[in-house]
Every structure is written in structure tokens, then in C-alpha cells.
């Protein structure tokens, strides 16, 4: 599973960082999402899934490839 982040949609709410700080960070200037681990596993994947469901702007998705 690969995390796809669309930074043009991201509104910088940081909910992803709260869900899984090992996987997501925010750009210092723009506040938009930075994916630290593109293909998370185990608990991190679970955290990433939670972030996808909670992200207010639909900026995050998981891709099968």
C-alpha cells in the first residue's frame, strides 16, 4: 500500500500528523502534508488508514500499487 497525498487539496489541519507522526509531517512554510514513509507497514499502516478517514480535505488516499 502506497500513500498518495495531494498537497494542492491539503488545508494543513495536521490531523494526519496527530494520527501517525511517524508517517506524516507538515511543511514548515505552507503547513501542507509531507509523507515521511511512502509505504508504511504494521501499526503505521493502521495509523495511515485512520489519517485517510479523518483528513478533512480528502487530500490523502491509499493506492494498491
Amino acid at each position, binding site marked *: 500500500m502506497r500513500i498518495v497525498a495531494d498537497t494542492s487539496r491539503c488545508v494543513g*489541519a495536521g490531523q494526519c*500528523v496527530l494520527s501517525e507522526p511517524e508517517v506524516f509531517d507538515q511543511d514548515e512554510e505552507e503547513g501542507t502534508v509531507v509523507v515521511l514513509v511512502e509505504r508504511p507497514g504494521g501499526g503505521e499502516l493502521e495509523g495511515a488508514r485512520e489519517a485517510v478517514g479523518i483528513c478533512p480535505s480528502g487530500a490523502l488516499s491509499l493506492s494498491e500499487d
Partner: protein
Amino acid sequence: MTSDQPTVTLPAQRTCPFSPPTEYEGMRQNAPVSRVTLPGGRTAWALTRHEDVRAMLADPRFSSDRTHPGFPVFVEGQQQIAARFKLSLIAMDPPEHGPARRAVVGEFTVKRMAALRPRIQQIVDEHVDAMLAGPRPADLVRALSLPVPSLVICELLGVPYADHEFFQSRSGRLLRRTEPLAGREQARDELRAYLDDLITEKEREPTDDLLGRQVLKQRETGRGDHADLVSLAVLLLIAGHETTANMISLGTFALLEHPGEREKLEADPDVLPGAVEELLRYFSIVDAVTSRVATEDVEIGGVLIRAGEGVLGLGSSANHDPEVFPRPGELDLRRGDRHHVAFGFGAHQCLGQNLARMELQMVFETLFRRVPGLRLAAPADELPFKDDSNIYGLYELPVTW
């Protein structure tokens, strides 16, 4: 089962401080997308289900233009006040909203907020010290709820805290539904004039604070002007202290009235982040600020909403939707669900949410650790709840220890 005939008049009053207005449950069951009557006799749609509220707030066909005549408001004439000055962020739509939010959101990242922790802890400790040294009973609103977030937002923005009486009273009047229109207008004008002067000073000599940095950023990028910055300052100053203050008072009240939940918190600090999410959900103090006006015909929850019609996204109803939150009326600090819409949803989701979370966590942790004997000093049913405000809260909370 939806009807075009309005059956409910909003705003509805809470009959129990712990529950959303009782009307909402009936609406959610009978007509989750309901036609409602607003003050002044206008009608609008009200969304009561979590799914529908989220769908609307994420849909760009709904506008945040608070000056639009169809925008649903609880105070007739509010749109005209809004129209006199450009409102920042909260009233903006694309393509204007995105760049304006990007220009400031970097100031509110999770990391930037975490860096404020030591200073916030110091502020909280000083105020708890002062409360403990003072007379009993104390009013928690004056002792802690208002000063802590006010000081934090002042330091962050670069607004002199010495002027707090001035801006707290103005923002209180702006949010109170019973305040006559002229009074609201005056409050807004005075607040604007005050921040206008402050920004002019910062333009002369940029200071190292959020507003000073915005001055420099405007020069660098050539985007935005003086009036934009004044609007942003007004929004951040009001949004930055009122909401958090009300959550501190209500959250403390709820924990005092639910000793079992309080014990969970005192026994295990790891409960803290989830406890704050649950308190935000439980009270949903910003019930109807998350409203919009449709710019096209859109179907929501099987109902056709026509272009130009107003839609209220009732956050407290969405956050008590039993399909998403089982036993929604129960305060459960271990619920472990962050899907609430207490901070809204979509592109306008609260800019200051991570500041608010941190302040609430630090206040509750410090207060219950340092004042284990804390208790109410007045009967719960006699407390002055903000039933007349667009943001729910408490005017006063007498406590002793």
C-alpha cells in the same frame, strides 16, 4: 420523509447543558435534512446527520460567503454587518480561500504548536497559583478559562495582553445573539479600529510575532494588503480565545459532574488527548457556525437543495449521531474516536485546532493534578450557561477546593 414545510424554529435552546437541543434528535430521526425557520421568518435547511454535515462541508458547491442574503444566520441583519468589512478565511471561497489560508497555516502546524508548550505550561501554572492564593470560591472563567487562551493568542499574534478587557468585552458582544444590531456593529468597529492601529505600527516596525511576520510575508509575496491583515487579526483574536475559554469551563464542569470520568483522567495521563476529543464532541460548542449557502442545485441526504438556499450544518447533532457515536449522550473519555466535526470539516476546518487541543490538554492535566479537591461552589442547574450566544459556554463557573 422530508417536508418542505418548516416544523422547527432555530436557534433551539439546550434544556440540559450536557445535550444538544432536544429538537435535533427528532429532526435526525424524522427528517434528517429539515426545513427550518430562522429569526426574521426566513427559512433554511438544517442537516442533522454526521454523514450529511461532513458531505456538505467538503463540497465546494457550498459557499462560506457570510454576506450572501441566503446565508443562514441566527441574528437577522448579521449579513449586513458582515458585508461592511471583508471577513477573513471563515467567509472566503475558492480561489481566494486556499492561498489566504496557506499564507498563515504554517504558523499553526503540529510542530509549531508543540514548541509553545513550555510557555503555555508556565502561563497555566501562574494562573493556577494565583487562583490557589486567592479567595474561595473562585470564578474559574475569570481565573483560568479566559486569561489562559487570551494570553496565549496575544503572545502568538503580538497583541498587548494589557488590552484584554477591551477586546474580551467586544468579542463577547459580537457573539451574543441578544446584543442589538447597533451594539454588535459598534463592537466590531472598535475592535477593527484597535487592530488597524496595531497593524499600522507593525508595518512601520515589523515585530517577531505572527502579525509582524505576516507583514513581511505580504511584502515578500506581494499578496494581500493592510485591510486583509486587519481582518485576519480580528478573526484570529476572536476565534483564538472565546472558543477555547468556553471549552475549558465546560470541560471542567463536565469532569466535576462525572467523577468516574475524572478518575480515569487522574489515573492515566495517556487518556488526556482522547479525553479532549471526547469533550469537544460532547459539547460541540460551535453548533451552527458551520453553515453554508448553496451555489448550485445539490442533493444532500436525498434532498434537493437549490442554488441560493442556506444550509445549517448542525455540528452538535452530527456529533451526537448514534450511527457514528454509539450512546452519544454518554461522556466516555476512552471512546477513542476523532471523527467528530467540533472543528468543522473540509477546507475551513479550524485553523487553530492544534493550539486549542494543546491548551485544553495542559489546562485539564494541570488543574486536576494540582487541585485534587476541586469542586463546584454552586448548584449545577443554577450556572449561567451561554444559551444566548452563537458559541456555547459558561459566563461564570464558581469553584472551590
